[in-house]
């Protein structure tokens, strides 16, 4: 695993109070960031001469239903020159919305579309926010924890759950 000596003190100082360190993380350092400061933090991490977190590895959507805040976005960054890794966590309330970081890293485009498709998280300012895996007419967000494993019953899916089974109304 990656070294843990990432100099995060300057990040915490720069974003005083708004960005917090996640003490529970063991495999790599982790920061909590509110959605409003996400883009600024990403730009800072990418462009800082010492940190150089120039590579976005992954964006992962999470659903903690029925807890609140219900959703979370997890970003995994890599600093290729320093061989460091960093995790950013962004808590989102229902209905979930976050700013896009596509202008910071081009690769975020499809990752964000995936999170939108699977969790219904919308990304403000995204250049092309459409479903990625599911077809456009698909109803629901399959990776949410209240979405049944077999999907909802319809003409193509006779073994699916009915809406009443999962308490989804209608």
């Amino acid at each position, binding site marked *: 695993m990656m070294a843990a000596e990432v100099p995060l003190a300057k990040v915490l100082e720069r974003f005083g109070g708004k960005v917090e360190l996640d003490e529970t993380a063991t495999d790599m350092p982790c920061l909590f960031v509110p959605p409003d400061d996400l883009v600024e933090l990403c730009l800072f991490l990418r462009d800082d001469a010492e940190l150089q977190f120039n590579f976005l*590895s992954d964006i992962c959507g*999470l659903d903690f239903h029925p807890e609140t805040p219900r959703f979370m976005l*997890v970003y995994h960054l890599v600093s290729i020159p320093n*061989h460091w890794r960093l995790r950013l966590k962004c808590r989102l309330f229902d209905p979930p919305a976050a700013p896009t970081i596509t202008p910071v890293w081009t690769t975020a485009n499809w990752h964000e579309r995936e999170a939108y498709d699977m969790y219904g998280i919308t990304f403000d300012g995204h250049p092309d926010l459409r479903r990625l895996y599911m077809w456009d007419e698909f109803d629901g967000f399959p990776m949410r924890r209240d979405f049944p494993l077999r999907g909802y019953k319809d003409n193509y899916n006779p073994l699916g759950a009915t809406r009443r089974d999962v308490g989804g109304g209608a």
Partner: protein
Amino acid sequence: MTEVTTLQETKTGSGYAREVLMNLGPQHPSTHGVLRLLLQMDGEIVERIEPHIGLLHRGTEKLFESFTYTQIFPLTDRLDYLCPPSNNLGYALAVEALLGIEAPIRAQYIRVIMAELARISGHLLITGALPMDVGAMTSLLYTMRDREMVLDLMEMISGVRMHTSFVRVGGVREDLPEGCEARILEFCDIFADRISDYETLLKNNRIFLARVENIGNIAAGDAIALGLTGPNLRASGVDWDLRRDAPYEIYDRLEFNVITRKDGDCYDRWKCRLDEMRESLRMIRQCVKQMPKGDFLVDDPKIAFPVDKDLLAHSMETHIHHFELAAYGFKVPKGEVYAAIEAPKGELGYYLISDGSEKPFRLKVRSPSFVNLQALTERTTNVKYLADVIAMLGSLDPVMGEVDK
């Protein structure tokens, strides 16, 4: 696909100029699976590429959440279906990190041998298929012949040619069969000569070069912003390989070079893979030489099935553990981990969150092909004609099982 949608039609002095939308795929030999590309064309010139993915979407990540940790292995096989041992390995590392265990050294060597064999198998397919896509049919027939040798080795080790599921949490399923080391070394000797054959077959082939050289160049900065990894990144001159830069398993005991190229065009991506196979051979030879005797699975009845199957018939305790493990699985402590390995296609990451039960709360796969394929949508230099799209797509080497998850 003959049907096209006309977007704009203008009459010029010499005839009609039409801007059309055209489908490439989803059933087309050079899309390497079920990928649909929507192309906006101005005559033969490509204006815009829009990949439509998801035709192979099986909801793997949703399924992960309802499977026990042992049951997940066969699902990971089917991500990058050309190189299942790598997928198994990455997943096993994530679970082992949360459990706080490590596989025995011999198991680590066996895993690395299999992962490198899988890399050869994956690279062989694309180093043969890319030339075929652009008109050099011969190469694929030869590379498939040699891929057969790799698959035979897989069969000898695991009993299965493709979806091996050989890795277990805490080791591998079985020890290498007798005589396997000799067969692996024999393969290395035969194959080392053949790589050079393929190289001479294609690197002076003018038709092949005209189609791939200086086509689809990706600059180093763009490659990083696009999140490219693996040979696609290294072909653009970025010296980054997790096997060396964040070593897992026993890679820090092996000597190998990280292959990089300068231009980042289709030829470089192809050449990078070709040279990587040589390095893989080197690694396999070292592994076979260094591999110690010993256990191949951790001795923990709560996590791994008993190595000595006779015990099942005699020891009640073993029997109970075996039943518990098979019926309910094992619990993984609460926590989260991101384990990344250098799979043949690039960085394969597993982000595992456990809530303390025997099923993962969330297991996110950062699949390299998914990210690499996105490079097709960006305006990379020198992808101008329809024919260049085919070369570009082949050189990015996406595997749809992994793109669609």
